[in-house]
């Protein structure tokens, strides 16, 4: 049956059709929807794990038990899961195990632009790279076949434009595939004596897969009428090349980016006058071609930064495109902002007002860095706020400093940093901004919310008890809508020379169960145009004709702005 599917939905469909029984993932744009879609199939057990390392190890366990398994993550998530990755590469699998990693060239929603293909090479694992939804579905099923045939985990590499583009797929029925479990210490216990014996097996396996890659249909040569140029490409870059050139020039379309098909590349290169490798981010395939002694073009004419497009490919080859006309030169940017009613706003206002250094983390609250709040000093990776703060404080800095980390991020990677603060006794203040959901990726449940991926009741981690259990004696909870209470907590805890945790707790204003108050209104006679209310950076407030005005389609009636008004100009509505 023909359906229009998002790349991530097609991957989930591939998991279903391949008989996958176990899915464990941590959300991360652009990979999140894979796991949300696969959770809709009753035949597949699917869960959110606290982080990617846990997810990958759980998927390994399911594979060991004989069930086809999967874990999905964004590119930076694979860094977190790299530890099990490199050793599961040694053990291989029992039932098939597939790992999806979704890169985010152009950093639509990421903190770096790393190219995950390097992981396949470094961990000596096969990696498939689809270029649309139909290929995503087919490659996912193929990945399970290869996983079991070659006894290896297989990585399916997505990118934003494949993961978040819908295109047409043909669906098929599910086929069950289960293996027996039998104890095999030499294969699965990776202590040195066993691992030394496994390493040569890994090398041989990679050679065997390279032989497969030579004849695999997914690495195909498309003939052209003009052999002056031949393109080696894959993923969305393939689509841009075809969009611009159609069937004019020959193309070697790579569906498997590791290991690469040496002979096929050489044969292809011999049939064209000049080879151009078109690949986003690093010159991964280009460098491989160079090691084969082939003279190819690639990063000399195409950037290793950001995304490509058909227009970019066309202009690189001197093909004219229509440039379009601008209607207006000075168009203000529209960056993402914290939503009206966002519970993080009151806390960030307090930090900014008191000029407190705030080491930030990964989530919606990273938007606290945006003016006018500009309340953050650093953002590195999941959990780095907590561990970074410890170093900042222990270094002897006199500057008042805090860490700001969300509930889901704290469960992902913040706990170990907090253990370090307690164990090595730094006078650090960690603020957990607990909005009762994983916000930025689109409202996923996590171990603090009391619900699982399917929305069913689940164990709920008590953050206060957890923080106390790791050795933090000072743990307090504040409502970030209450600015006075927020300020008191922050000033007291940062003054005291011992470890502390402030839990800034209020659910995300976008959650369906959260009731909003009626929108506030401004009494223009009382408004003195002082713009104090503008300091919280709420998208619902703006100055019109010199007076503060409230957009009643956005305002949630949180009342944070009203607390800043010295002239009592805000009128509160009632319960809505």
């Amino acid at each position, binding site marked *: 049956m023909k359906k229009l599917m998002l790349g991530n939905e097609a991957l989930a469909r591939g998991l279903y059709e391949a008989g996958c029984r176990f899915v464990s993932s941590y959300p991360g744009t652009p990979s999140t929807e894979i796991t949300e879609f696969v959770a809709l199939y009753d035949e597949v057990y699917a869960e959110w794990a606290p982080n990617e390392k846990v997810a990958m190890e759980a998927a390994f366990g399911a594979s060991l038990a004989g069930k086809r398994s999967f874990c999905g993550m964004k590119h930076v998530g694979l860094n977190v899961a790299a530890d099990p990755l490199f050793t599961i590469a040694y053990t291989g699998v029992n039932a098939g195990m597939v790992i999806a990693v979704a890169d985010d060239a152009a950093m639509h929603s990421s903190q770096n632009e790393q190219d995950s293909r390097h992981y396949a090479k470094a961990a000596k694992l096969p990696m498939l790279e689809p270029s649309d939804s139909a290929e995503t579905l087919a490659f996912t099923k193929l990945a399970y076949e290869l996983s079991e045939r070659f006894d290896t985990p297989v990585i399916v590499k997505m990118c934003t434009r494949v993961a978040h583009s*819908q295109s047409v797929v043909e669906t098929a029925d599910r086929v069950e595939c289960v293996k027996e479990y039998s104890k095999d210490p030499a294969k699965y216990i990776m202590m040195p004596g066993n691992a030394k014996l496994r390493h040569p097996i890994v090398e041989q396996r990679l050679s065997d897969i390279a032989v497969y890659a030579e004849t695999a249909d997914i690495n195909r040569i498309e003939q052209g009428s003009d052999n002056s140029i031949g393109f080696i490409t894959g993923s969305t870059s393939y689509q841009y090349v075809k969009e611009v050139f159609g069937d004019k020039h020959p193309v070697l379309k790579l569906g498997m980016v590791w290991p690469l098909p040496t002979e096929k590349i050489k044969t292809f290169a011999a049939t064209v006058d000049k080879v151009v490798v078109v690949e986003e981010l690093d010159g991964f395939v280009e460098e491989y071609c160079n090691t084969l002694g082939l003279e190819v073009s690639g990063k000399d004419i195409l950037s290793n930064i950001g995304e490509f497009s058909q227009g970019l490919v066309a202009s690189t080859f001197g093909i004219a495109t*229509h440039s379009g006309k601008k209607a*207006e030169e000075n168009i203000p940017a529209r960056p993402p902002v914290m939503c009206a009613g966002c519970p993080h706003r009151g806390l960030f206002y307090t930090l900014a007002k008191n000029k407190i250094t705030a080491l930030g983390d990964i989530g919606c609250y990273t*938007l606290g860095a945006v003016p006018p709040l500009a309340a953050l000093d650093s953002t590195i990776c999941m959990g780095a706020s907590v561990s970074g703060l410890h170093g900042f404080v222990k270094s002897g800095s006199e500057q008042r400093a805090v860490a700001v980390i969300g509930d889901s991020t704290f469960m992902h990677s913040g706990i170990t940093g907090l253990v370090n603060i307690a164990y090595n006794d730094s006078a650090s203040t960690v603020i957990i901004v607990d909005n009762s959901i994983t916000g930025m990726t689109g409202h996923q449940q996590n171990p603090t919310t009391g619900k699982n991926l399917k929305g069913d009741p689940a164990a709920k981690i008590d953050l206060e008890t957890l923080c106390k259990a790791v050795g933090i004696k000072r743990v307090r909870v504040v409502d970030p809508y209450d600015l006075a209470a927020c300020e008191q907590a922050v000033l007291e805890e940062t003054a005291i020379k011992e470890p502390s945790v402030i839990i800034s707790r209020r659910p995300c204003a976008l959650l369906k169960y959260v009731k909003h108050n009626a929108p506030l209104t401004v009494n223009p006679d009382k408004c003195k145009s002082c713009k104090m209310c503008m300091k919280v950076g709420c998208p619902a407030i703006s100055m019109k004709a010199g007076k503060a005005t409230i957009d009643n389609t956005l305002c949630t009636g949180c009342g944070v702005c009203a607390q800043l008004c010295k002239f009592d100009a805000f009128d509160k509505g009632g319960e809505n």
Partner: protein
Amino acid sequence: MKTRNIMIVGVGGQGSLLASKLLGRLLLTKGYDIKVSEVHGMSQRGGSVVTYVRFGDKVYSPIIDKGEADYILSFELLEAARWTEYLAPGGKVITNTQTINPMPVIIGAAQYPENLVQKIGETVEVIAMDALTLAEQAGSSKAVNIVLLGQLSRHFDFTEEEWMTAIEQSVPSKFLELNKKAFTLGRNY
């Protein structure tokens, strides 16, 4: 058939994902090859968002580049102006006249440009309409997306019935009548 390109632009949270889903469903029933490219994650938090819808005999690229769009369907006026240069020769902008101030304007670091409907009209062909008022007439300010789809529908050969079927498949049943009304108001504008 040459690939046709529609861009849906607006502010994160205005419902562009539903509009593109609905359009995709309709095009699928007509047997086209289709690609619809969306934006998720951080950009959805009140930022500028764009969705690309492409259909034809064979569609390669999932995105639309400068000078390629046959239609730009804009949910907010400034966003229409932001993307005008993506319009192909002979293309049309269909825009809501509603304005939503971006943060740089709110904090006084930038000005919301004046006379934008006129400026866009001097550059390209534009249909500007107060879709917010029509959506409110239909029963919800959130139906701006469907009002504008109604106007877009006038430029395609698909029947009103085909559009209505796509709406039925895309919105929850309790909002169906509201959305059908919004579509009709937009189509008859």
